[in-house]
């Protein structure tokens, strides 16, 4: 049975906080529709999810290649800016929340109780400006504004078609990793359904600063693609402080790569398969002064990786996205032990290892109605600490919902969303260590201009 310390609770809450605030709502970009006169449905299966035409447009550096891409062809009043926000009513429920036995009395001991809350809510506001600075130079800036705090979620510039070749594009800045099944363009919005858990998973007790492949990172990316985007590759070198700006935490770099190939299957549609890998190092401790860590002095780097494969499948009006991940963090990261204190490792400590994946299916009834169903799971195959129950941290989640777009034109977009989802976290109840389940129901408007 896991010994619960404040550290462990704190880490879990921190992880949850990062999860909820670090996950930005995804976007469709009406600024592109306004610039080119195309409707949202030309680039998006159902915004924000991209279809192949939209993915090609993105990979080309937001260029259609028809000679009118450079900003000089736009009217001076055109500004490549969009905003997006969701307004909703939602209901959240969790079956094992730690509460004081007597409300207001911190020393009355704690019990686990089910908690349900509901009400009207707003998502964080997405403001995005993106497009071309000139022919073959593209950019993307996304400030992140949520409840009064702000930061930069993404900011990058990209040199497209280096040497006239679409196989060489260089991006630099803070950016989302090259993923075709993208966290930034996820179709579901609720607390349980609004992220791919595999993209942000850290095992219980692990203090790896790396949040997951769903977080935006600082670095450079070299990428390329074939003319119709059927073949794509990318290689990125990233700083290993999880995209935080300011002093780098340590002097190591992470590498991420993604290779994929699409092909046509007669009578069915386009299919795509790909493999990816994230290989990095994270610090396990800092230099200190008076016992306090000095920012920028992360050291004791230890390695971790996330590798796997994915597929995008089209079968008539259905499409499926399948994803598999195999992840491992170093034993020191997994047990939150500084690398210069090997004696602090628990007996039998090991590198935490897990496998996970999801299947997300859609029924594209028409460009204005999409039905969604998703199932995700994560299974620990090796816990970091032998004292932890073998299934602690395992996760099962599913979401069903639909998005209906009453208007879809080259100026703005509006979607009516309804979704319901459940998450089961094995061994994650704060007091008893039992399984913790949460559910979300959300309905509301998702709109952008």
């Amino acid at each position: 049975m896991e010994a619960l310390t404040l550290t462990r609770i704190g880490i879990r809450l921190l992880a949850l906080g990062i999860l909820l605030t670090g996950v930005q709502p995804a976007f469709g970009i009406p600024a592109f529709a306004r610039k080119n006169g195309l409707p949202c449905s030309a680039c998006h299966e159902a915004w924000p999810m991209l279809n192949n035409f939209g993915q090609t447009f993105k990979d080309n550096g937001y260029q259609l290649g028809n000679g009118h891409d450079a900003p000089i062809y736009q009217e001076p009043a055109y500004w490549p800016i969009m905003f997006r926000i969701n307004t909703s009513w939602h209901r959240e429920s969790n079956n094992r929340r730690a509460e004081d036995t007597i409300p207001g009395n911190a020393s009355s001991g704690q019990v686990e109780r089910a908690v349900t809350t509901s009400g009207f809510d707003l998502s964080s506001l997405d403001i995005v400006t993106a497009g071309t600075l000139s022919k073959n130079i593209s950019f993307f800036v996304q400030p992140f504004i949520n409840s009064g705090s702000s930061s930069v979620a993404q900011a990058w510039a990209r040199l497209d078609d280096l040497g006239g070749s679409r196989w060489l594009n260089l991006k630099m800045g803070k950016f989302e990793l090259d993923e075709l099944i993208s966290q930034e363009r996820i179709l579901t919005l609720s607390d349980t359904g609004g992220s791919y858990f595999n993209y942000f998973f850290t095992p219980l007790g692990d203090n790896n600063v790396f949040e997951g492949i769903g977080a935006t990172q600082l670095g450079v990316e070299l990428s390329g693609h074939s003319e119709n985007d059927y073949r794509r590759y990318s290689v990125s070198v990233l700083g290993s402080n999880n995209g935080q700006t300011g002093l780098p935490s340590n002097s190591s770099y992470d590498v991420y790569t993604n290779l994929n190939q699409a092909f046509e299957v007669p009578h069915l549609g386009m299919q795509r398969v790909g493999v990816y890998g994230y290989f990095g190092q994270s610090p396990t401790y800092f230099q200190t002064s008076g016992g306090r860590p000095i920012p920028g002095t992360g050291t004791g780097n230890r390695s971790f990786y996330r590798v796997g494969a994915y597929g995008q499948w089209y079968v008539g009006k259905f499409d499926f996205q399948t994803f598999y991940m195999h992840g491992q963090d170093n034993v020191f990261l997994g047990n939150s032990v500084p690398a210069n204190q090997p004696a602090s490792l628990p007996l039998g400590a090991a590198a935490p290892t897990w496998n996970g994946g999801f299947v997300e299916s859609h029924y594209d009834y028409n460009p204005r109605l999409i039905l969604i169903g998703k199932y995700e799971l994560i299974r620990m195959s090796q816990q970091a600490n032998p004292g932890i129950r073998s299934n602690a941290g395992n996760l099962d989640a599913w979401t069903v919902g639909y998005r209906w777009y009453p208007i879809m034109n080259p100026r703005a977009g509006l979607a009516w969303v309804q979704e319901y989802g459940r998450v089961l976290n094995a061994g994650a109840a704060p007091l008893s260590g039992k399984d913790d389940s949460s559910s979300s129901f959300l309905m509301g408007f998702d709109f952008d201009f």
Partner: protein
Amino acid sequence: MRRKTTLTGSAALMLFLFCGYSWAQESHVGNLSGNEKRGRALYERYCIFCHGQYGDGRGESAPYLDPKPRDFTKAVFKCRSTPSGSLPLDSDLYDTISRGVHDSGMPSWKPLLRQERVDLIAYIKTFSSAFQEEKPGAPVEIPPEPPSSAESIQRGAQVFEKMNCWSCHGKDGRGHGPSASTLTDSKGYPITPFDFTSGSRFKCGETDRDMFRDLITGLDGTPMPSFASAMTTDQKWDVVHYLRSLSIHGTHKQLAPISQ
């Protein structure tokens, strides 16, 4: 009298056939066949906002586009391999959708599956009854290109002068000829002649063979006429070589053609 009864009789028969038999438009490109019903779903996803619900080029975005989107109800197309005044072949429409139209709002739709593009063509043909009433003309023959040379370019310059190409394209090929400011397309919108010095892509293909073909077919719906009988084959190749020589990229650089 007999003629009149035969006429009414056949008219009645035709009416019966026309009303009783519902016509599904099809298209054929290579070994793919397109179906208008699938094409319609694709049109409503990708095309409708520029080309309009009725295919008349009056979609919601159209007022803000220059040049205007094609009006399919007229069945007049710039990029063909058939003579001036003729309908295009299915493969001509396929090539235009795949290549896009440079310097316009029409993107290259290569990221769409080949089958999807062929389906779209089947639906586009339903916007004009011309596709049911007439057949496209025979595609033009393009003989092998002789190599370019200084003499060929010189001869081409003389043909350019004699054929009055300069009245629109200008003596230097920059597109500022004396008639250029008066030019309108067949919808009445102002249109500018191509600037051969820019070295940019042509609307109907990038290779010398495409230029040769454009000289024969003309670009219907625009002031660019057909020179089918006005020039000999050799003269046409000479003009192609001359026009290439005007490009700022230097003599005879061809842009890499977009693969299908």
